[in-house]
């Protein structure tokens, strides 16, 4: 199976919409390029570990950045 089964696809879609809606885009746009890219990547994918790597931050530090950017974790 290549495509995500419906239940998961729906959950992913819902999560992405919530992250996009809650995100403080003004805060995100003001960040240095690396953090900005990582935050946008997280909003689109929800993949915190890769986003933290992109940001060059430890996982928990990136989680704190998400809070400051008002981007919720949706799981």
């Amino acid at each position, binding site marked *: 199976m*290549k495509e995500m089964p419906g239940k998961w696809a729906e959950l992913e879609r*819902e*999560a992405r919409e919530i992250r996009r809606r809650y995100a403080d885009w003004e805060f995100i746009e003001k960040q240095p390029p690396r953090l900005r890219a990582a935050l946008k990547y997280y909003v689109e994918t929800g993949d*915190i570990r890769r986003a933290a790597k992109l940001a060059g931050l430890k996982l928990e530090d990136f989680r704190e950045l998400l809070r400051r950017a008002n981007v*919720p*974790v949706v799981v």
Partner: protein
Amino acid sequence: MSAARPTAIADTCFLIDWARWRRRDVIFKVFRLVFVPESVLDEITSENTIAWIANWLAEGSLALFTETRDIVEEARRLVERSREIPWIRAVDLPEAICLCAGKRWGYVVLTENRGALMAVEAIEEYRGVKVWRALEVIREALRTGVIAVSDPLSVFREYEEDTRHIFPRRDLESVVRELEGDAGKVG
């Protein structure tokens, strides 16, 4: 008399949100013991989370899980297998270690990593592993009376407020309905 409390193993994503919740200590009334893999501990950086973990390690309700070579090898195989299934979100080594320990010793795996949730559905040999998010831990605390309130939804809302973690609507509604049904049966 309630059934014996299970043992759990927690990954980083779970702990860093859970440790911010005002009722975080209820986890030790739901579980007999919660293991924290050393690789997970390495990812914890905030004073709040470290202090909470240190306190409960001292109390003996949390315990360090030292990864053995065979568990790490099994976890690496699981990571590779998860990469071969195109629709699964990435499972990384810390979560994979938790899943392998869950499979081997029957621990409940505590994670907020959707890849881990997907993996136990997609990979046959991990299908029996019990994977809980904060949603299920809170449900269990409410179901067993560890948290006694008349409005279960308010407890989930507290968690969302304290941690900036949002539960998927459908999952939350389903759990609240289930809890209210249980309360109805008891009452």
